[in-house]
């Protein structure tokens, strides 16, 4: 509002912030796939994230227009759910379960070990950009705690040594 008031006259509506470019065609294809389906925003966001690795802030307007919702509503949905991210993650994503069953089997120590090894905290990416470390609250593998999910692959009874092996694999990936 403040900025608007100092805009020189005759320049029309102030444009929104400039967002980095993204693959609009990929987003358009996903929007087309879910067009006219009731309650389609979550499937669309999942589709975009699967295709691009994250939901680009610039895509919010494109999505909102296509499903006839406000940009605020779309942004509200993206920011509500833990799954959706708005920036590029590391080359691998490691999710460590933080819930009770895994706590009972040493997940706190395992998480501390991962943070030390990667040099980043939960919710951050390692400085070399190789691994994003995320918390997750239950992977349904509670009979084999502690559990971890590395790029969608589930692992059970994960020891610090086992985690080191998984991370070494992840770092070797291009």
């Amino acid at each position, binding site marked *: 509002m403040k900025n608007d008031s100092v805009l020189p006259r005759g320049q029309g509506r102030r444009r929104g912030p400039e967002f980095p470019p993204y693959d609009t065609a990929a987003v358009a294809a996903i929007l087309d796939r879910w067009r006219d389906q*009731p*309650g*389609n*925003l*979550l*499937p669309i*966001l*999942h589709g975009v994230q699967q295709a691009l690795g994250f939901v680009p802030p610039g895509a919010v307007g494109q999505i909102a227009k296509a*499903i006839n*919702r406000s940009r605020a*509503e779309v942004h*509200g*949905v993206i920011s*509500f*759910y*833990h*799954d*959706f991210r708005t920036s590029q993650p590391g080359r691998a994503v490691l999710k460590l*379960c933080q*819930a*009770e*069953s*895994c*706590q*009972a*089997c040493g997940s706190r120590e395992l998480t501390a070990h991962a943070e030390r090894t990667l040099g980043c905290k939960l919710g951050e990416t390692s400085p070399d950009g190789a691994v994003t470390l995320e918390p*997750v*609250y*239950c*992977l*349904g*593998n*509670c*009979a*084999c*705690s502690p*559990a971890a*999910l590395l790029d*969608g692959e*589930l*692992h*059970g*009874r994960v020891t610090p040594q086992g985690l080191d092996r998984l991370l070494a694999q992840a770092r070797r990936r291009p």
Partner: protein
Amino acid sequence: MTIKICVPRDAAALSLGADATAAAIAKAARQAGQAIQLVRTSSRGMFWLEPFVEVETATGRVGYGPVTAEDVPGLFAAGLLRGGAHPLAHGVVEAMPFLARQERLTFARAGLTDPLSLADYETHGGLRGLRRALGMAPTAVVEEVVASGLRGRGGAGFPTGIKWRTVASAPAQPKYVVINADEGDSGTYSDRMVMEGDPYVLLEGMAIAGYATGASYGYIYLRSEYPHALAVLNEALATLRARGVYGRNVLGADFAFDAEVRVGAGAYICGEETALLESLEGKRGMVRFKPPLPAIKGLFGQPTVVNNVVSLASVPIILDRGGKHYADYGMGRSRGTLPIQLAGNVKRAGLVEKAFGVTLRQLIEDYGGGTRSGRPVRAVQVGGPLGAYFDQRLLDLPLDYEALAQHKGMVGHGGIVVFDDTVDMAEQARYAMEFCAVESCGKCTPCRIGSTRGRELIEKIVRGKDVARNHRQLLALCDVMENASLCALGGMAPWPVLSALQYFPGDFGLPAKEPAHVV
């Protein structure tokens, strides 16, 4: 002769290397020149033995576990294909004490069948419930479920048949069936096992619910943490459509039904049914005010049955054998069986389906075999992250909705998480509040703000700062959250905190003689 070998494809088995084990078995058989039929089945639910390999022999299936890929050559040398003796052998699977003492109704097929083989499913009693239901009046189907005494297995324990009755009598059309597959409670995995291991029983139950209530479309709201379940459910739906079980004429009857899977996005609160409906509508998962009940105005404002996975998976056997058969199991107002999930620090972690009334001690000691670490059991959390922590004194409580409620506990979704004596209960209480703060939808103040203030108060008490005053304030805060929150998240987050304070005051640096607040 071709020998049948079964290796589970359940996600927990895969997380321990079941694929590598299966590949090693196929390779070893090729090298031995022995023809085998390698079947990827569901899991028996004996997860401490996964990957669990079963070999069909004249005396029944013989089990081996845990079998890693490296164990396979040795097992072949010991005569695995004949069910030969080996340190990893457990004899005939059905006779193993962990399984032999269970009452498996909902999980009757666990470990026996290929999850996606409809032929396997029908051979083991599948589709009989739906066939019988389609021959009855919809109201008679509802009454059969009422007679079974089945209560919602998701946690709230509301009678399923009564819910169906409300939807059936609602005049508006269209109506929907929604499966709540957002199994977010730590220590639970029975929904996952059903969806990955026996998807047709869930989809059969869903069609029965549709027929009984007058709904012709369904949504399965599945949490995103279950990618294997997603793949299995989508394939199972395609098969049912192709075989005419789902579609314009369900099994040839004048009844149309179809369904689709929708994936959540990592929000615990979406397991609350009204938040789930909001999420399905493409919105933030904010809890709705009730009334109106979802049964009257649910998904897209239409009458909607929202049932948990295990609830619906229990319906086919109720229709097949009759409501009375199911109700003959159990105690008091808790009828039928409950799939209990042993988790956390327990030696034999796995699925135990038993009639209501089994005690916590029987479950943890007889079935679970104590802790995995070998240390004494100190605390047990029943019913997920909002469930109370019990200490040794309460382990003789029977698992029953009302018995646990008397001690401010809950059956919940049937998960039991065991902790040994290294656990710091003040830290567990702090975590309960922190979890509530992370997962709160933010609609009501007691939950949104109270959870953060609760975490801070616990941290102050542990630091020894103004302990008496902060303790009093924590109790008052818990009272507000319990009584003024909109849904169970804020309303029950105090339960693990209050129970930890009551049974383990020393962990907070509080004197042992605190006035009893809970119970």
